[in-house]
């Protein structure tokens, strides 16, 4: 009886066009934020932070970025891993060169650098489309990873070829390096995720988002009605790469603490994030979070059940996981091409009508 438009009168355009038009939705949003910021940091353990929450938030940012490009802009990219590597290595170079500047600023700058790289590799999208573009972005993936492996300047000539996050503090708390506490990791990632989700939501429902969607639905038609494909496609690549760069920077500096280009940012990373976007829902902010949560929790869950409860060897569990993920992708594409977000939307529709069937 609570989930109703009835009686919820809008008296201004501002009210009418807000993100959550229903009161219950709005309350749910604020409660989620309050719990995320006010409760979880005090109860979080190392296991939960490292296995579930921190990777979830970081991949949610990456999925948001890729969703802007694929779901809103209609440009398929398989270069996510490479762009995350740019974010990570840019943070590393910046924070070791200018240690006195806050790491958080460096992470944002790294996002900016990734955006520039993304625009460069996005240029061919003006000429080529669809699969051709998907394969062209593979060039970014392989070239960038190779570059970070082969040019010692990027990893400060370290003998192992790895980059390691140095210790950095913010407001007196350690936020990077091996001494980082679980709540600190979690809060930094959460702050970035919430802020970027807010940016993404407002970009996609404004002029920029409408241009991207026009290009996605039919680029020639969009061009005829006055959308400039150059600026629309390049801005989609720039914003998307910014998000992905920040995700890569967080993955390296906050979560992992050390990274090696081909190990950490291989082609599998690109596919993982793409799957999150597909399972979560193309063209949906909520979907990016749902997809990231699903694919972060699934391996942990399967590992606990198969290895923990059944006592199977870990390699067998890993193969079963591959099969399940693959089958789920196919299943989702057949049953619900719009992903978890669409299921959530349908549930909400049903809720509005409940208890009546129509």
């Amino acid at each position, binding site marked *: 009886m609570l989930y109703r438009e009835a009686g919820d009168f809008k008296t201004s355009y501002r009210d009418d066009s807000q993100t959550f038009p229903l009161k219950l939705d709005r309350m749910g949003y604020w409660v989620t934020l309050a719990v995320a910021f006010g409760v979880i940091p005090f109860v979080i353990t190392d296991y939960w932070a490292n296995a579930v929450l921190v990777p979830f938030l970081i991949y949610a940012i990456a999925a948001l970025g890729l969703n802007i490009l694929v779901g809103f802009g209609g440009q*398929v990219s398989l270069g996510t891993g490479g762009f995350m590597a740019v974010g990570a290595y840019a943070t590393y170079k910046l924070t070791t060169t200018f240690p006195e500047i806050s790491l958080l600023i460096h992470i944002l700058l790294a996002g900016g650098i990734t955006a520039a790289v993304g625009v460069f590799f996005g240029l*061919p999208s003006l*000429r*080529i489309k*669809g*699969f*051709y573009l*998907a*394969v*062209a972005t*593979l*060039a970014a*993936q*392989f*070239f960038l*990873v*190779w570059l970070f*492996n*082969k*040019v010692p300047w990027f990893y400060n000539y370290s003998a192992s070829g790895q980059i390691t996050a140095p210790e950095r503090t913010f407001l007196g708390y350690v936020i990077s390096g091996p001494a980082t506490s679980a709540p600190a990791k979690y809060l930094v990632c959460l702050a970035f995720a919430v802020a970027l989700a807010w940016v993404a939501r407002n970009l996609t429902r404004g002029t920029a988002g409408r241009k991207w969607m026009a290009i996605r639905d*039919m680029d*020639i*038609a969009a061009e*005829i009605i006055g959308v400039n494909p150059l600026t629309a496609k390049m801005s989609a690549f720039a914003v998307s790469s910014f998000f992905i760069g920040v995700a890569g920077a967080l993955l390296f500096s906050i979560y992992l603490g050390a990274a090696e280009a081909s190990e950490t940012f291989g*082609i599998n990373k690109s*596919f993982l994030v*793409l*799957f999150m976007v*597909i399972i979560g829902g193309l063209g949906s902010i909520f979907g990016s979070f749902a997809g990231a949560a699903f694919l972060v929790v699934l391996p942990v869950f399967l590992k606990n059940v198969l290895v923990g409860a*059944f*006592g*199977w*060897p870990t*390699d*067998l569990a890993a*193969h*079963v*996981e*591959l*099969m*399940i*993920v*693959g*089958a*789920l*992708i*196919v299943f989702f*594409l*057949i049953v619900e*091409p719009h992903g978890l977000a669409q299921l959530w939307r349908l549930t909400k529709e049903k809720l509005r009508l409940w208890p009546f069937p129509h």
Partner: protein
Amino acid sequence: MEQLLYASEVLVNGLMAGVMYSLVALGFVLIFKASGVFNYAQGVLALFAALTLVGIQQGQVPFAHLINAITGSHISSFGWTVPSLLAILLTALVMVGLAILIEALVLKHLVGQEPIIMFMATIGLAYFLEGLGDIMWGADVKTLDVGLPQGISDTAEAWTAALTGYGFFIDRLDIWATVIAALLVAALVAFSQYTKQGRAMRAVADDHQAALSVGISLRFIWVMVWSIAGFVALVAGIMWGTKSGVQFSLSLIALKALPVLMLGGFTSIPGAIVGGLIIGVGEKLFEFYIGPMVGGATESWFAYVLALIFLVFRPQGLFGERIIERV
């Protein structure tokens, strides 16, 4: 002169590697032409075929690892070995069965979806098959030997030594691969030009609806095309498996086949061959001349960058049909 001879040896080896790429690319083109599906799983099909072949040949029990984990038994093999030719035939049958399953479980439900959705479905399929192959036959690196000759060809070395005074190193397996690839292409072209099914296949490729309206069974054609692609994958799997062992990296050759396709155009069988040769030669020569200057291992990205630059100037590939877009 010395340098030129080295370079031409690199060139010949590049051509041979290109033939291998072409073999994988061929499978892609077949499926793309007949169903408009860009089949990412082609590389994993090759891996799956090679794993199955080794498994049957050595009499492994399928799912042994899984059965052992559930029941606590210690079975691993039936204790017999199957002759190569029979094993290849059995594997081909398995690939046909797989094609039927894929059509019934995946493709049938996705008719009329956008191409990019189909593409993503085949990525899912690739993951599934990779897991399935590993669970069925185990994930360890296996050696595949179906009796193809391997090692340095003495004849080629003697001939080139007689001609130029410098003996080329050419793997005998590569020569065989070239011959087999040529035969395969000839057979495929003959099949699609001169048989009833081949004509039906081309009709489907041209226009699904028109083909349906003259009484061609779309589902049968799809199963057939996927079976043929499975067979091509088997051949590619045998070649690559013999060359570098049957292991996960085999499925990555699918990624290498993508730039080959982009160069040649997605719809052209000759394009797949020429594209493969260009990429094979290009990356070997680039590694030979430029590689030492930039730290080597350029083979990992050269093909993609070449294809990318090429596409900017000619988006439909060398032999592709011209893309005409309308609102």
